[in-house]
């Protein structure tokens, strides 16, 4: 069984986001970048399935500028076998990413495609579902537990009301929740080894996919700031303020 895992390079989750003064976006110069956190869970799960003997190959793929390759390299350092980097500049919308991934799937013919349930930069939560639609494959979104059975997966999904279990035939798409597993860290020897693993590069245009955005970003601004609050000195004062000043209890 072959598993393709899509990873995205995003601003690190610990970075305090700053909006550019001209309103064209957020500051990315000299800002720490990392793999989108739930994509780390996706890689981890694929590698675990391979380690259990149920998969033979894990391929990491990313779409983005030259530096996005770092994200693939990191996936190789934690156990992916080879990488694919589809080069594209600027904002690549989920619909375009899913069309690119569709081309990669048609070429690589994986049994499973894993990725994070949402990217923490644009917070779109679309790509996995869109790819499933284009391939007409089953989709198991927001997965917090995956059990590989013969030609099938049983997946527990995190939904608003609690948990939902579905059974899907492979080939299929799974989008991963942060609760799926605990991603491992890359060891230094594995980081060195990963440098020798192959990463195939191509351009989005080579795949015949138009990546021009269909959504125009008119402006990006800071959200309204909350007015500074006060510190209260006792619980009694707090309850009194909530009752008589804020009038919420």
């Amino acid at each position, binding site marked *: 069984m072959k598993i393709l895992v899509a990873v995205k390079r995003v601003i690190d989750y610990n970075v305090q986001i700053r909006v550019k003064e001209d309103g064209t976006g957020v500051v990315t110069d000299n800002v720490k970048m990392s793999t989108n956190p739930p994509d780390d869970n996706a890689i981890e799960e694929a590698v675990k399935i391979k380690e259990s003997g149920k998969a033979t190959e894990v391929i990491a793929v990313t779409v983005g500028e030259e530096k996005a390759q770092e994200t693939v390299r990191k996936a190789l350092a934690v156990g992916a076998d080879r990488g694919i980097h589809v080069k594209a500049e600027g904002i690549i919308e989920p619909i375009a990413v899913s069309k690119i991934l569709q081309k990669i799937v048609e070429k690589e013919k994986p049994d499973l495609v894993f990725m994070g349930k949402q990217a*923490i930069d644009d917070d779109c939560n679309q790509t996995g*579902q*869109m790819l499933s639609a284009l391939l007409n494959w089953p989709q198991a*979104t927001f997965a917090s537990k995956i059990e590989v059975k013969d030609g099938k997966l049983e997946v527990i999904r995190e*939904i608003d009301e609690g948990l939902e279990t579905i059974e899907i*035939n492979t080939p299929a798409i799974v989008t991963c929740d942060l609760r799926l597993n605990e991603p491992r860290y890359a060891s230094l020897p594995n980081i060195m080894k990963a440098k020798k693993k192959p990463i195939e590069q191509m351009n989005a245009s080579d795949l015949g996919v138009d990546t021009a955005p269909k959504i125009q970003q*008119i402006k990006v*601004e800071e959200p309204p700031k909350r007015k500074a609050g006060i510190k209260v000195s006792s619980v009694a004062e707090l309850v009194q303020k909530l009752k008589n000043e804020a009038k919420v209890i």
Partner: protein
Amino acid sequence: MSVLLIAEHNNKELKSFTLNAVTAASQIDSDVHALVIGNNCGDAAKAASELPLVKKVITVEATYYENFLAENFAPVIVKLADNYSHIVCSANTFGKNLMPRIAAKLDTSQVSDIIKVESADTFVRPIYAGNAFATVKSSDAKKCITIRPTSFDPCESTGGSAPIETAEAGEEFSLTKFVKREEVKSDRPELGTARIVVSGGRGMQSGDNFKLITSIADKLNAAIGASRAAVDAGYISNDHQVGQTGKVVVPDLYIAVGISGAIQHLAGMKESKVIVAINKDGEAPIFSVADYGLEADLFEALPQFLEELNKLNTIQK
């Protein structure tokens, strides 16, 4: 131009956030049609027809719609989409799972999780966990939009009498099978719509200590929330998680106890009307968004808090 609103329901009743989605849909265009797909979902369709903002209800029924699988829903919605300029749904797990499957089949770039309708093609949506707001304009002829329910008021739920039409079911998608759903039943208000939310974080130190939160929530008729740290530590189940990857809540009062206030948590609660933070670390980032901050040991403060609440003659419900 008409808007097709995908209703979320449990085959009997509409889910409350459908009312918020109807409000958002009506701000795009007044001709809102509600689509109710399910199995024996006549009651839900009737409830949709009573929403005064809904001009028409379309129902599609089949046994395989019983459990709302996106693989079954998307094809029939795509077929009905011909007559509409916009397809709208709530951005909760139901809509997040479903809408991109529709958008891709329509070759549309979806606009996710909008918090404001500027015009029929321009919307405001939070990005980077709500640390920035983007105003975006869609150039697609047919627009697929999910709305953040807590950013729109619920519409009136009675007084309307829209006609109910039936549409033909689509084919069944046989490669995905529903197995079971484990819903957490509770007498408390739902986390997403509660007027008051009391949340605990890693500072609670154990699941057992959440009893302190529970007793306050009981007193205030509040929902119980949690930070991801508390959920990951196993103190409480994930359906309580508030934040970027959990639920977004906008209660009148949000009480954060033992929560430091990571960006990802703030993303889920910082639009609350009044925020209280109880934390022993005076430098914790949660204080920067709190209207009332109490620097104290929560194990002393929570019992006192309950005591003070017990002293009050009346508490709003």
